[in-house]
């Protein structure tokens, strides 16, 4: 059923997402890496639902819905910071310390 392969791919995708969030400095790219993490998890859920039944697939639908809501809010926040700073590069956003 290729469950193990799917889980391995999901782990790799999740790791790519985490590394991307930690190393990139552009807010949009960080956000895309977060979405990659969420979709890697979705792959895991679907793979597990081959073993345990529909629960995993239901979860995936919820995750996609929530991710869409989060994307709407996130892009709005990125636009509002762009209006203030004319950039979405986190290097140039250091009004607050730390």
């Amino acid at each position, binding site marked *: 059923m290729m469950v193990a392969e799917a889980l391995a791919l999901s782990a790799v995708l999740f790791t790519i997402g985490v590394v991307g969030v930690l190393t990139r400095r552009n807010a949009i790219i960080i956000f895309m890496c977060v979405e990659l993490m969420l979709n890697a998890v979705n792959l*895991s859920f679907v793979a597990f639902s081959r073993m*345990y039944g529909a629960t995993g697939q239901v979860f995936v639908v919820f995750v996609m819905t929530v991710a869409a809501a989060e994307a709407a809010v996130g892009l709005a926040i990125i636009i*509002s910071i762009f209006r203030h700073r004319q950039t979405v590069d986190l290097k140039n956003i250091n009004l607050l310390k730390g």
Partner: protein
Amino acid sequence: MNYDLSIPMQLSAALLPDLLLIGGAMVLMLVAAWRDESAEHQRAVGIGSILLAAGVLVMVLVQGARGATAGPGVIAVDSFRWASDAVFLIAGIIALALSIEYNSRERIDTAESHVLVLFAVAGMMLMVASRDLMVLFLGIELMSVAVYVLAGMNRRSGRSAESALKYFLLGAFSTGFLLYGIALVYGATGTTNLATIGERINTFNLQQTPMLLVGIALLLVGFAFKIAAAPFHMWAPDVYEGAPTPITGFMAAGVKAGAFAALLRVWLEAFPGVYSEWHKAVWWLAAITMIVGNLVALQQRNLKRMLAYSSIGHTGFILVALASGTSQAATAFVFYLLAYTLATMGAFAVMVSLGTSTSPRESIEDYHGLWQERPGMAVAMTVFMLALLGFPIFGGMGFFAKWYVLQAAMQAPAPQTRLAVILVITTAVSAGYYLSLVIAMFMKPRPAGAAPLPPSGAWSRAVIAVSVIIILVFGAWPDPVVNLVNKHSSLGTPAQTAMPRPAPETAALP
């Protein structure tokens, strides 16, 4: 009354306060969008939101007094849920009252901000009610998405936008960890129901399964971000400093309380069977958080940042209750949350009432000699600081909050002696910054040329007075709160029976 959650009508009845709050918030959102933005409209929607939250609070207290129970299902009906709900609603009502005043002063005319507070509270209520990882996830996201927006509510302020961006990126990042943790726990046990997870861990002997342990670790990392436990706390001071002051108080008190309640629920219901595995991680998290939070708070000169680090320190104190893993810990936890919420929101209320749009009164120097100009505010701030410190009598509930946590830690099957010692020492350290603010207010002279203090608004004065009274009254007479939580508490009781190998404290250290 015993709800059968497989019958839709009874499930709705068990969820009635949550449904009422969400439904009411949706109606209020339409009302908020109906008219053009104006100061009066903002105030009207704010008052409507307070009334709705107060109504739900009464309903929650009635439900708690009735002591209903429920069969197996996705929703928990127990006194832990009702008591936590009450704390969230109180935090929400205080935040709404302060927001009305703050928004009028800063000319933020978006009436929707009040409704978002209600949605965040509804998310917290779902989180603490959840007995299923799916409901838990939806609750966390309902809360988080609303609070991302709230952090950036002041659209004219670049700092507010930056705070929202940081909170959003780190919040979404931590959601990824949380979700992967859920996926792996589901993969290891084949279910998302907390009670069933707990049973299957014991029946199938999953204690050493790598997938389960990695899943629990990822869940813990996700929660640690949400509750701002060190070393996952770096976002908190920045976000707290940039967000509008009432929202900062709401994030420091309500959001943290919600994430903690969910953490406690998941850990005590689903993972008591692997206590000896997660105990080490929670132990270190608690110890590091207490030490880092309190030591760094000593160096802060900005009151908002100081309170942010103080809230990180309190995260550590509450984690001590979790590390002991008993039902007594759940009681201590709710009492601590109520005391901490009132004291933190009260301190932010003082900041709101003394601030102006040009001078937000965020530095400690602004509070020098407050006693000479505003004796009432100085006394109230002193009560809040002593409550956060855990000072006897004058600190009211704060003292008992720490006392119950210590008691839970020492009376657990595996006494947490070392954590208790760290808790006492770091509390002594925290006197360094709480008392220095008190000394500054009473002993230091008012700086020459300081801008005159504005007249305080009615909303913030009411919030401060009520918080002081509750802290002092329940500090002198804590039994009603404890009894409300203890009665019919189902949470954590399996922890005592299902804990097969109580790890002695020495085994917890490498």
